[in-house]
């Protein structure tokens, strides 16, 4: 990911690198994207076809809490890997970033299990009812973002073996880390609004 963006070399007005500004502006755009998806979910919450699975019947709080914990820990690993590369410790960087990617992949495994469980066990697919439609779309797009993040992290891991990922290239890791933390924060919002509050309000199943 060396030169995913470019810079003609002279100093910038704000002193920040162009790429750092770009990722922040991009994340602003992503906020609106997930905001719209979550808004759709909330507008349709509790509406739909009688006799089809509802959130309270299918959502499994203990399992999803575990996967949420895994994803939050991956953010911690990400911080450690950035810390390692800023000190020029490529060896530790490789360990931590691989841990981050593995935890991200674990989260995806949980999601795959959850989706499969819903479909096989409860017969809930996106076509079943409004809950299925909005749930799979919202969490599915989040999962797609995690997938992109995992590919990005693995790419950085492999790139480090080319030997030109040094202390000066901390920014490349920093940008990937910003994206990774953002995806994490979005999950906290989704977990709260989609899983915790509805189940909490109703006193659980």
């Amino acid at each position: 990911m060396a030169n995913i963006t470019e810079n003609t070399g002279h100093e910038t007005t704000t002193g920040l690198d162009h790429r750092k500004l770009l990722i922040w502006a991009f994340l602003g755009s992503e906020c609106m994207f997930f905001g719209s998806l979550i808004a759709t979910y909330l507008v349709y919450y509790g509406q739909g076809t009688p006799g089809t699975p509802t959130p309270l019947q299918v959502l499994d709080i203990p399992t999803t809490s575990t996967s949420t914990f895994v994803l939050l820990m991956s953010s911690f690993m990400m911080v450690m890997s950035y810390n390692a590369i800023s000190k020029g410790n490529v060896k530790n960087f490789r360990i931590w970033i691989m841990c981050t990617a593995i935890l991200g992949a674990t989260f995806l495994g949980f999601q795959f299990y959850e989706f499969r469980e819903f479909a096989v066990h409860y017969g809930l697919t996106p076509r079943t009812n409004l809950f299925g439609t909005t749930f799979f779309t919202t969490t599915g797009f989040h999962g797609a973002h995690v997938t992109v993040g995992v590919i990005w992290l693995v790419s950085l891991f492999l790139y480090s073996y080319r030997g030109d990922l040094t202390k000066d290239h901390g920014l490349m890791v920093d940008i990937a880390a910003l994206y990774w933390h953002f995806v994490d924060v979005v999950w906290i919002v989704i977990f709260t609004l989609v899983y915790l509050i509805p189940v909490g309000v109703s006193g659980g199943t």
Partner: protein
Amino acid sequence: MASISNVLRRPTSTTGVWGWITTIDHKKIGIMYGVSSFTFFLIGGLEAFLIRLQLARPEHAVVSPEIYSQLFTMHALTMIFLGVMPLSAAFFNLVIPLMIGARDVAFPRLNALSLWIFILGALMFQSGWFLGGSPNSGWFAYAPLTSSTFSPGNGMDFYTLGLGVLGVSSVAAALNFIVTIINMRAPGMTLMRMPVFVWMTLVTSILLVTAFPVITVGLIELFLDRRFGFNFFNPDAGADVVLWQHLFWVFGHPEVYILILPAMGIVTEILPTFSKKPLFGYPVIVFSGIAIGFMGWAVWSHHMFTVGLGPIANSVFALTTMTIAVPTGVKIFNWIGTMWGGNIELKTPMLFSIGFIFLFIIGGLSGVMHSIAPSDAQQQDTYFIVAHIHYVLFGGSIFAIMSGIYYWFPKASGRMLSESIGKVSFWLMFIGMNVTFFPMHFLGMDGMPRRQYTYDSSYGWDFWNLVATIGVFLLAAGVIAFVHNFFRSLRKGEIAGNDPWDARTLEWSIPSPPPEYNFAEIPIVNSRDAFWEQKQRGEAGEQGTGAGYGEEEHHDIHMPSPSYWPLVMAIGLTAAAYGMLYSYPLAALGAFVTMVGIYAWSMEPVTASEDH
């Protein structure tokens, strides 16, 4: 270099066809944006021409009702997404780096990517005409008319996929310009010394980056409904079809300001130049632009006054809509204040700018009429609305864009457009515009619904419809005169020199057309209108800043090298979009090509090594 970059040799040529295809120079990209989007503007005009021919007489049958529905839908979408927006982007590309004293945009290859996604996405969008039909639901595509039950065929899929692909281009370009404007200003150019066009580009880019994700979600939901049986807009599953209207207009109203704010920026550059006065009330005009952008998020439901959202929602949105007229009115007074007492030169760019103010006021006034919800209930879906949007979009945006083309053509090409043909084209367009669209106010007040295929003679709409159609011929003559002027002046136009208009901003301090690196020395800015003040103090020589521009002195300026990968990625993305319609293997292949493009791009150094 890694193996993948050696598959294709790095392009090195900066001339010829490949030089244009692989270029990452913002000026060439701007020119390509301009030429391609003006071509789409002509296609959109042709669609409008057919609509007006159909409506020229009662019970006419120039086209079939189905084709007519596709025509009015595609006319709107073409003009908005393939005409006005990319024409604005052409000015962003051409002018912004020059105005802020930069050598290029922040991400030149990302800029090329935006261009190629736009061109290929636009061709894909228009290809619906030859592949079984274009969208026919109106540009707003209200659910559930757009469901696979009521809109079978591929027409609406060209809508979701085409607009989705074009959205990627717009957001990428907007991100690029946000970073460029915030981070690449010449030393001394503080925010409040930036030219107003730069300010309006910044506000527009922020609107694009925040508004497009909303419609993207709407398009994804519609696409999933149509192709995979999801239930987002399926009333049988209990879905609320008004959700689509909210998603669409939450995007759709900021979009209106995305279309008009760049136009306001262009006019704000041109009026002081030809009035020989500094801009009247610079901070006020900047803050009212920001206020318009901000308030643009709070007025969307005024498109939905007749949906039945209830009196409270209607009252709130009526009030916010009236409020947004205030900063708009402030700008108009600023423009008039700028001209007041000035030494006005009626060159063609100035004529178009004054025409803009005149027509935009008419459109703005009918806009305020629509803000009153009970009154809007009478006007909704009549030709009165058609008159309003054409006064603000054609009289507003397009007149400002024409003004900008006449103003910056010399900078881009090095030659002047002919003033005499320019004036002819202005008057034909100005008169044609009013003859076409003013009668629509009468037709709308008389109850003629918009988007209707034909009408009966007994309604009494014959005369004004015929007048409107005659106006289109005048309008078309004006556009043809401009196209003629364009091609004639490219070859035979008077040589422009650096600063043909005695203008204020930095782009006029360098040669026309500018060298690849723009500024031999990065200028230092001490005030607003820095170049003008410099000229008045007599520091600038006859030809600009007086800095030496000898080619041989500037071999040490390293510019980024051309690249294939933006084009490869754009091809991959467009192929993936077609694949979603026709075959999933093609979609997978497109996604794979896009991935290859991303990796090759990432591994490719910004500047090709010297030993190439």
